[in-house]
């Protein structure tokens, strides 16, 4: 046997040992929704990726804002025609600062980016750079330009975003996101968007011919657990320019125009972008696990620190609450059919609570990482939290394909004094399941709708609706109380 034959055999052996389960249809759909949202949802991690913030990018992937790591630069080639934005005046607070704008154009003219396949795109000259927007926005300085880019004889146009700290000199502005010419653009900025020091205020910018822009949120979770998402119009700072700066401690906010979400602001709401923020995220989240005093709870094991942080970040994001003004607690951690599930309680400043189930997702297309929130419900400060959700496994078919039409497991996490649960299905039938040690429990059942948790005397200690898999989408957040 020669060397290459041996290498071929070794590669074959190794390939045969690799096991990776295909994503099911729901997981793919979630990924596709994220791709579709990319243009209208802020790509906070884009700039972060360009700045080398690997951790931030990973976190943003998990967050769902950035569906893919952004380390691969892309120069989009589109029509050579300029956008309507480029044909208009320079907007923003620096519109009158001729020296700064000139320096910016000269910086843009140094654009020189190599792409896979050997393309090398360069900006031809400062004279051909249109500055669409330049200004200070909260703790940031933002510039949006449009310029031709050339690769050999090919010329295309691109919109480039530059970001720095408030008041930054042109030299300190970092180029981040790049797109083809668009007439309506939006971007969001959060902690970690600039390399030097975190900011506590999220910000967003919308440029274009939108008729109106509406702010939705931050979410209000009252002490009794009721949820509202207040909406209010955002006033244009000048024609075609909407600037939003959130106060410190705000949770997640959406900006909408024409009835569609265009950006999600307030990334502070989930945290976890830096070691310091991760420390805030994890602090106090697992007192019971650490002391081992978890009565009537099946805590399978204390998750590894990274996994715990991932679950907490996912739950924090799903809660839409700010990380610094809310508290987190790992309620339960366990495994169902080999998939690790965590339940995290996030407490709002009012005392109202958000209960979030977080499921490990290893192979979901375009989601990456672990810690996907799959169910959310809210409770009042005085209520007994409980959560039930449907967990569905993918089932292998004979031809190697997979389907999600497998058994539906209902995961039940009830109060610690519950000894049993009574599950009601769509046909009105009830099914009882014992919850050793007070829970959690898992029941294989189709059509589960609601759950009643019972104590040793048969009295009801908590009730909850069963969160269905359809609700486990990319935009998981506390639902508005009817």
């Amino acid at each position: 046997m020669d060397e290459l034959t041996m290498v071929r055999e070794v590669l074959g052996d190794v390939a045969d040992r690799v096991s990776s389960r295909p994503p099911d249809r729901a997981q793919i759909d979630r990924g596709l929704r994220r791709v579709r949202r990319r243009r209208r949802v802020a790509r906070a991690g884009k700039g972060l990726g360009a700045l080398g913030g690997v951790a931030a990018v990973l976190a943003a992937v998990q967050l769902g804002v950035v569906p893919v790591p952004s380390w691969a630069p892309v120069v989009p080639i589109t029509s050579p025609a300029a956008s309507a934005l480029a044909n208009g005046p320079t907007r923003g607070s620096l519109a009158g600062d001729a020296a700064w704008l000139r320096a910016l154009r000269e910086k843009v003219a140094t654009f020189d980016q190599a792409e896979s396949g050997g393309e090398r795109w360069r900006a031809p000259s400062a004279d051909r750079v249109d500055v669409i927007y330049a200004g200070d926005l909260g703790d940031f300085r933002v510039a949006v330009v449009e310029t031709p880019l050339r690769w050999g004889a090919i010329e295309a146009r691109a919109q480039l975003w530059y970001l720095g700290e408030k008041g930054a000199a042109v030299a300190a502005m970092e180029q981040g996101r790049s797109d083809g010419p668009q007439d309506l653009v939006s971007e969001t900025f959060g902690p970690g968007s600039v390399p030097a020091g975190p900011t506590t205020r999220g910000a967003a910018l919308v440029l274009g011919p939108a008729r109106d822009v509406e702010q939705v949120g931050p979410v209000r979770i009252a002490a009794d657990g009721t949820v509202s998402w207040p909406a209010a119009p955002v006033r244009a700072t000048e024609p075609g320019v909407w600037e939003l700066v959130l106060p410190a401690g705000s949770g997640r906010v959406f900006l909408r125009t024409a009835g569609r979400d265009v950006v999600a602001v307030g990334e502070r709401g989930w945290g976890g972008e830096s070691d310091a923020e991760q420390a805030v995220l994890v602090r106090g989240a697992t007192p019971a696990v650490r002391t081992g005093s978890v009565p009537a709870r099946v805590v399978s094991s204390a998750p590894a620190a990274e996994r715990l942080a991932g679950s907490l970040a996912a739950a924090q994001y799903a809660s839409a609450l700010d990380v610094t003004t809310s508290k987190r607690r790992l309620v339960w951690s366990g495994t169902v059919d080999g998939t690790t599930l965590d339940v995290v309680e996030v407490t709002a400043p009012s005392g109202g609570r958000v209960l979030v189930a977080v499921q490990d997702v290893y192979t979901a297309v375009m989601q990456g990482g672990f810690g996907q929130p799959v169910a959310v419900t809210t409770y009042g400060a005085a209520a007994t939290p409980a959560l039930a959700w449907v967990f569905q496994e993918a089932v292998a078919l004979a031809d190697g394909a997979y389907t999600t039409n497998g058994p539906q497991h209902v995961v039940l996490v009830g109060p610690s004094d519950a000894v049993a649960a009574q599950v009601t299905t769509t046909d009105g039938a009830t099914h009882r399941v014992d919850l050793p040690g007070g829970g959690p429990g898992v029941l294989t059942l189709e059509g589960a709708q609601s759950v009643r948790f019972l104590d040793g005397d048969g009295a009801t200690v908590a009730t909850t609706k069963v969160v269905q898999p359809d609700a486990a989408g990319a935009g998981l957040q506390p639902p508005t109380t009817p």
Partner: protein
Amino acid sequence: MPDVAAEVVPDVDVEGADDGDFHAFVQSRWSALVRYAYLLTGDLGHAEDLVQVALEGTWRRWRHVRAERPEVYVRTAIARRAVSRGRMLRRRVREAELTSRVEAPAPDPTEASAAREAVWRELRSLPPRMRAVVVLRVWEDLSEAETAALLGCSTGAVKSQLSRAVDRLAGRSALREAVGLPGAAGPRTPDPMTNEER
């Protein structure tokens, strides 16, 4: 072969793209693509990441790609990203895998089994582009021209990379032992996950 320079082609409007074909494609080809990416990267987590990213790019251009050969497109994207990402990973902190989903080889106390494992370790230690050439030429059985087109380099580069890879592997005792040649004490095999420049 689809033009993977389509990385710079504008995204299609995916709002109305057909999901059904894409679902079927992902579910039927996922495992094979991950195996392929694993051979290129030697790390399952990174392999799955690469496949995810490549599939996302494929989806964005699905209308164009599906009529041709989507798997070729995806495999090209995976190989190119594996090469470029390999460079980046040298600067990254190693990610610990929580649960290994790559089976250990079946218990086999023979020297042949140990030698094969050693060969795999040495393959993993090759620089990303060199490893990609080995995988594409030897495992995928592509021609020099196909390999060059897929990686976006010249056929001369493919030839020299494969030659250097074989020389490098043949210089290690593991491969020599595996093919029955007298053992040779080769240079130290660098840890593939360190930041060591090669």
